[in-house]
């Protein structure tokens, strides 16, 4: 009898083991088929508004472009969304698997990045399968650190606005919307990655810098963040990090944008690009830079595209008292502070950023475009330790 029981037990274990493998890909909650949402929303759920304001494969669909088919397959697709994957992240990973680009590696937290090595200390981890492994037990957590506005503690992500394929997990779709429909995305903003600039076929001193909204959703965590990428966008989830709430936090400029640090002030001796007198977001695909004495007629003379390189700083170097830095001498808004993105961004050498010229390949430039997917610094901070604090805080203060 004991033997029989043992055999039965082993058989059951064997079956469970096999079933575990089979069910692993469907281990998370929510409707992964998309049929439910598709039925409820109909075609308009995705195709209600053709106005898009980005380019590349996501957006800019015209009668002569061929972009839809790159993600969607009309027949025999992997899901009701006609996508190549069963989940949102599977679909994204189909292209964004670091063999073709590392500019938006959705699972960069798991894969060594050729630019960074593998020393990843912080990341936004999304639900998904990586190299055949399902990480839904540790990834895709809906816990938002500092998400509770009342006490600064954790909160739970509102996933109601996500596509059905996301289920109830934190996915790429929690922050990005692949179709870039204008009404659903933030405004385009000044990018920070060198991959979006080109000097190809341009004369000396000329450069195109492309602008994109990174298909970021306007509404995140159920909060309409106002359509601008900046502090409020981050605070859509991390509501407990707001200094004007019930919790003591480092001041942040609530209206601060994540891309326009220069505002209208520039230290003496520094010059604006293109003869502009302010850093401006322009609603166009790219900004044409022309630093020649006589700029070409196609130069955007009303916009200085430099952004997110500089910090709100004191008039002199806070560490050594050097003269005003060439950039970034911007007074804080009253009762306010820097934007989230001034402290949280892709790692770089801030000091080098201040003293370097307009060098998007330099060590001071946030050129790798991985923020906020991953960072080799903790807490997704731009620098670590006191080197970070002393960018703004004077060591000679009492």
């Amino acid at each position: 009898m004991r033997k029989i029981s043992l055999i039965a037990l082993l058989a059951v274990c064997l079956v469970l083991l096999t079933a575990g493998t089979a069910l692993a890909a469907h281990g998370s909650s929510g409707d992964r088929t998309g049929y439910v949402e598709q039925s409820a929303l109909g075609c308009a759920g995705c195709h209600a508004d053709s106005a898009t304001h980005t380019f590349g494969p996501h957006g800019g669909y015209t009668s002569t472009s061929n972009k839809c088919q790159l993600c969607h397959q009309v027949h025999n697709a992997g899901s009701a969304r006609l996508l190549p994957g069963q989940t949102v992240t599977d679909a994204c990973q189909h292209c964004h698997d670091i063999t073709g680009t590392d500019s938006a590696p959705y699972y960069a937290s798991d894969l060594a990045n050729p630019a960074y090595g593998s020393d990843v200390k912080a990341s936004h981890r999304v639900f998904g399968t990586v190299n055949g492994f399902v990480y839904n037990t540790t990834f895709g957590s809906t816990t938002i650190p500092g998400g509770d506005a009342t006490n600064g503690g954790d909160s739970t992500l509102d996933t109601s606005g996500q596509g059905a394929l996301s289920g109830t997990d934190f996915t790429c779709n929690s922050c990005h919307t692949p179709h870039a429909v204008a009404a659903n995305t933030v405004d385009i903003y000044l990018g920070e990655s060198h991959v979006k600039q080109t000097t190809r076929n341009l004369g000396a001193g000329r450069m195109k810098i492309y602008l994109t909204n990174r298909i970021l959703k306007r509404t995140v965590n159920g909060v309409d963040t106002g359509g601008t990428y900046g502090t409020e966008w981050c605070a859509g989830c991390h509501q407990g990090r707001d200094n004007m709430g019930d919790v003591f936090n480092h001041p942040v400029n609530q209206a601060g944008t994540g891309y326009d640090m220069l505002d209208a002030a520039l230290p003496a001796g520094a010059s604006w690009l293109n003869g502009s007198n302010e850093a401006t977001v322009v609603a166009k695909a790219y900004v044409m830079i022309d630093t020649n004495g006589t700029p070409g007629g196609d130069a955007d003379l009303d916009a200085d595209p430099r952004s997110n390189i500089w910090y709100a700083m004191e008039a002199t170097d806070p560490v050594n008292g050097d003269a005003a830095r060439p950039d970034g001498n911007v007074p804080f808004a009253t009762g306010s502070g820097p934007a989230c993105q001034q402290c949280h961004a892709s790692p770089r050498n801030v000091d080098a950023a201040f003293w370097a010229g307009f060098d998007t390949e330099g060590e001071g430039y946030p050129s790798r475009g991985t923020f906020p997917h991953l960072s080799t610094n903790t807490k997704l901070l731009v620098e670590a330790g006191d080197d970070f604090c002393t960018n703004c805080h004077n060591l000679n203060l009492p």
Partner: protein
Amino acid sequence: MKGKHKANIIIAVLTVTLALMTYIYISIPEFGGGGIVSAQKKKVGKIEFLFAVYGPGRGTLPSLNKPMSVAADKENNIYVSDSGNNRVVVFNRRGEFMFEFGSRGVAHPRAGEKADWSPGKFNYPYGIDIDEETGNIFVADLVNKRIQIFDNQGKFIDWFPKEPYGGTADDIFPLALDVRDGKVYIANPFNIVIFNTKGEFIKDFGMPGDGDAQFDRPNGIAAGKDGTIYVSDSNNLRVQALDPDGKVKWIYGKVVNAFDNFNKKPQEFELPRNIAAGPDGNIYVIDSFDFNIKVLSPEGKLLARMGKRGVDDGTFNFPNGIAVTGDKIIYVADKGNDRVQAVRLTDFVIEEEEKQ
């Protein structure tokens, strides 16, 4: 008591049956959902479909998962870099499963986690090729930043580079590789590195960019009989042919700025990925976003553009890998369909692009 005894026997029989069924399910290809799924020859235009393999059809991973690259040996055996499953799967020339090796192992873990790589483990294996002289299998273990060498039975031999390799960078991030005449040609994201088959560094060249001999994530590399190095310069949407010193001989395809011109047709390439040098001297390129095979002459002239998107036999869905045997059978790693197809081009045709 007698009734109880009977019940016990019934339970025992049922249990053994269940265990047997489970064993059969995971061990026998025909019951496991993999193996040769389609071997009915057919023609799709001038493409002759021979067969497709979807996986070993046995074990806990009976099916392929994102097969990114494929290689062939002198016997036309098929070696698949089953990237999503972190393994290599080998089939014979008829598509019958032979053996597999590899599992997931991380050499460069996240902070706070331990490395668990050991010889024979992979973290996203990608490029694969066979040394014709020895039959050894070379695998580009992409995220572990190394090339692993196995004998023709899948037994681990060695890996390289174990330390800064002596070129312009410290390490490699090998996307594609090709082995020919004692050399291992490796396509890194922005340059080309050449080792000998013992893993000793020979030279490297190239840099990021879209000029001559500059690269943007080349996902294919193949050496010709005369030493010409053909590089599928993927994100620059072109193929570059270079001499052994890295000097450009010709370029087919044009760089287009994706922000302005993404996927606007006609273009020479939509997204060229793996590349193979055929026994006829021609260059076979997989265009992943155009869902077809393109054939270039050794001088860089387009000879054929064949194939279309689909899930049926003889059609492709984001194909990524290609290998050409000595008798010009083409193996395609049909990534989006999680299979490898064996096809033959009965003629070279420049097919009209389909209206989308």
